[in-house]
């Protein structure tokens, strides 16, 4: 029973059942959804050992679905994240309306993503890609009135990407008469070089839109921020990885064969790095926590793109490592922001403050999340960042690494702002009696948080499956210890030693500071602070949150001033007015139409020779 067909049947069937259940037996809905996603996890887990490739003809095309290590990596991420986000959504979405719609689209997104990673031919890839796109669009516009234009923007950009991809597929079909990926990889060099570069560029655009590559990222911040949080976690965690999945294939399987691999590498790597830097800058100036995380996502995807583009074994490893890890930690962060939203009704960082004592587990998740994003040891993020930097330096991209470093240092700014504004700072009177988020929300979060720690100590548990997955791209061997990191110059970091040292010192120091003056150490409220003797009243909140990074904003003002978003809006406006002008070709006047007919006839008559190219 473990096969790809079952997987699709269960997931899409579950989607429809969930919708039906919502309108018949409401209690069954949640059960169906959870069981569906859990079965998904089980099937995906068992697939490599049991599944056989599925192949059938659809129209003119040979459809091919199969499991390989590379797909398996992403499929597991999708399955696990899908499962966790769905559990998380039980309580989060409880009070919302139209849950059948929500869960149906949610499961369709998951199914679409399974379809993408398991498809071995371009047609089914595009088929599932579009399914994923429209179902995610449906979720983006789920929330409210403001979501309409954002959703439209998302869809238009997605469509541009998808159609770029479609053009590439069509070109491949026209020239190679195949849609099979493996045949494409074998025969790619048979294409003319102009066609090769066109196909590569089109595919990069296609996948780049989903992975929010500059300058196609403009949809992402808004769409991430406005979609319901359980979905945002999946959106940023797994859905954006579909772009990465495709970019990996395009860069390492197609571009690597072409004559301009070096150029493609450099350009894509630079785009990735600039994406990372600018997205970080934009994240710093955000005031909405979810939007901040959205920009952060874009930045992290930039890192992954750089890693894929550089194309050395270590960099691919780091990219895939970061891709997997990003799925987890960004889901964690979005979930914690969502938990805050669930309790306070806002994610505005200028409003919500001081939740740490109210929501300790959420805080812990957020803390682990930001430490992982920052790449600070001992959590998993460090391994990814370390490998990326080493790979970037060792492959000779010296200035690239500077941009990456700048972005990653600047990332501390927004990460701190995220955790400070929501959880630290003065306790707000308004939130005096809120509680920790319910168990269905905290449990997935905390499990993932602990997982980042495990990955930090034993990066090998990620490195080994990723090493296997990289077998898809070529023969790379990674015979590292489970707890150590090794670069190409032979330098290494032993995470076990690192974590032991950090842990030992941390525990000693913590014990010392706790037992010292234990009985005379008092907890005081955050109202009891040094304010030059003045006493803040109950209603005063002195948390410094508005314009938190004003000085930094002033420093990077020239960058912030120019916005790609504005350019797109300008284009859209001009196009609309041009269309408006064209519309008046249809005057609504019968005589005009008659005139058109006569003119048409006359033109054809007069220029017949020209138009039909026939010597009369």
């Amino acid at each position, binding site marked *: 029973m473990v096969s790809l067909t079952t997987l699709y049947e269960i997931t899409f069937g579950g989607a429809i059942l969930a919708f039906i259940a919502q309108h018949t037996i409401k209690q069954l809905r949640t059960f169906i959804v959870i069981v569906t996603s859990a079965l998904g996890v089980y099937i995906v887990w068992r697939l490599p050992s049991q599944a056989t490739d599925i192949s059938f003809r659809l129209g003119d095309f040979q459809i091919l679905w199969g499991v390989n290590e590379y797909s398996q990596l992403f499929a597991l991420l999708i399955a696990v994240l899908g499962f966790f986000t769905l559990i998380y959504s039980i309580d989060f979405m409880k009070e919302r309306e139209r849950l059948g719609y929500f869960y149906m689209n949610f499961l369709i997104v998951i199914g679409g993503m399974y379809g993408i990673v398991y498809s071995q031919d371009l047609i089914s890839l595009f088929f599932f890609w579009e399914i994923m796109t429209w179902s995610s669009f449906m979720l983006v516009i789920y929330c409210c009135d403001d979501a309409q234009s954002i959703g439209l923007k998302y869809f238009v950009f997605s469509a541009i990407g998808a159609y770029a991809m479609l053009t590439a597929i069509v070109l491949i079909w026209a020239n190679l008469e195949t849609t099979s990926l493996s045949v494409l990889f074998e025969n790619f060099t048979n294409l003319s070089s102009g066609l090769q570069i066109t196909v590569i560029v089109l595919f990069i655009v296609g996948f780049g839109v989903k992975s929010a590559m500059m300058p196609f990222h403009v949809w992402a911040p808004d769409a991430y921020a406005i979609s319901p949080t359980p979905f945002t976690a999946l959106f940023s965690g797994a859905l954006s990885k579909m772009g990465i999945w495709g970019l990996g294939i395009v860069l390492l399987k197609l571009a690597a064969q072409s004559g301009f691999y070096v150029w493609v590498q450099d350009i894509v790597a630079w785009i990735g790095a600039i994406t990372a830097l600018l997205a970080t800058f934009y994240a710093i100036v955000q005031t909405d926590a979810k939007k901040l995380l959205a920009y952060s996502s874009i930045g992290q995807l930039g890192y992954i793109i750089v890693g894929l583009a550089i194309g050395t074994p270590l960099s691919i490893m780091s990219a895939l490592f970061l891709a997997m890890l990003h799925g987890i930690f960004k889901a964690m962060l979005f979930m914690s922001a969502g938990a805050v939203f669930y309790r306070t009704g806002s994610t505005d960082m200028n409003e919500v403050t001081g939740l740490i004592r109210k929501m300790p587990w959420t805080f812990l998740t957020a803390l682990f999340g930001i430490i992982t994003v920052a790449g600070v040891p001992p959590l998993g993020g460090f391994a990814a960042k370390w490998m990326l930097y080493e790979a970037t330096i060792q492959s000779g991209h010296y200035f690239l690494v500077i941009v990456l470093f700048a972005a990653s240092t600047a990332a501390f700014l927004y990460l701190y702002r995220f955790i400070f504004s929501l959880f630290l700072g003065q306790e707000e009177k308004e939130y005096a009696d809120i509680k920790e988020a319910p168990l269905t929300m905290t449990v997935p979060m905390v499990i993932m948080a602990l997982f980042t720690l495990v990955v930090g100590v034993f990066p090998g548990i990620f490195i080994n499956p990723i090493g296997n997955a990289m077998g898809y791209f070529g023969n790379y061997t990674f015979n590292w210890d489970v707890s150590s990191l090794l670069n190409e110059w032979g330098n290494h970091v032993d995470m076990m030693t690192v974590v032991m040292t950090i842990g030992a010192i941390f525990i000693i120091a913590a014990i010392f500071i706790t037992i010292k003056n234990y009985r005379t150490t008092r907890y*005081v409220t955050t109202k009891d602070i040094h304010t030059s*003797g003045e006493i803040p009243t109950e209603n005063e909140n002195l948390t410094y949150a508005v314009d938190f990074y004003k000085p930094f904003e002033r420093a990077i003002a020239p960058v912030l001033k120019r916005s790609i978003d504005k350019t797109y809006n300008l284009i859209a406006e001009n196009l609309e007015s041009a269309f408006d002008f064209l519309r008046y070709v249809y005057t609504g006047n019968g005589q005009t139409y008659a005139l058109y007919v006569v003119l048409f006839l006359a033109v054809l008559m007069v220029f017949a020779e020209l138009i039909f190219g026939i010597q009369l």
Partner: protein
Amino acid sequence: MYNDKDAKKIVDIIQSYARKHSLWVVAYGTGCGAIEIPPTMTSRYDAERFGIRGSATPRQADVLLITGYLAVKTLKRVIRTYEQMQAPKFVMGFGSCTINGGMYWDSYNTINALDRYLPVDVFINGCMPRPEAVISGFIKLQQLISEGKAEGAEKYLKNLEWYRENQNKVIPNWNMPDYNW
């Protein structure tokens, strides 16, 4: 080892020596005497050689200088600042205004006797005391510390009710958090 009497004594000696030579002053300029602090601290008189240093916040400070007259309104802030300091902590009255009201003895809004409201360890008289006097006041405080007599904080805690009564008499609207030593 820690329970051993002599050893404890040694620890005490080290601690009081360190305390004595590291007096951090919270910079709270209450009255006209605040103008005497900059010369005390800077090149001319260089109080830093005695380990005296300004500190920005009461959380880090050891010494609260009341530099001159205290209006009722200021008194409330001063009490707040004092209570935010961590024990052991010392108060120095500065100038005659803190002793008996000085030239503001009959004013309707300046207090006359500081030690009714805060446990003053050292008074420095004069209107205003010169930096030399200030430094000699600090040396007096250091002596008291090494002798173990500068226990203002404990006195305050022990007689908190009495202090509170006096404070409440001049500050009718008492809206401060409870004293957490």
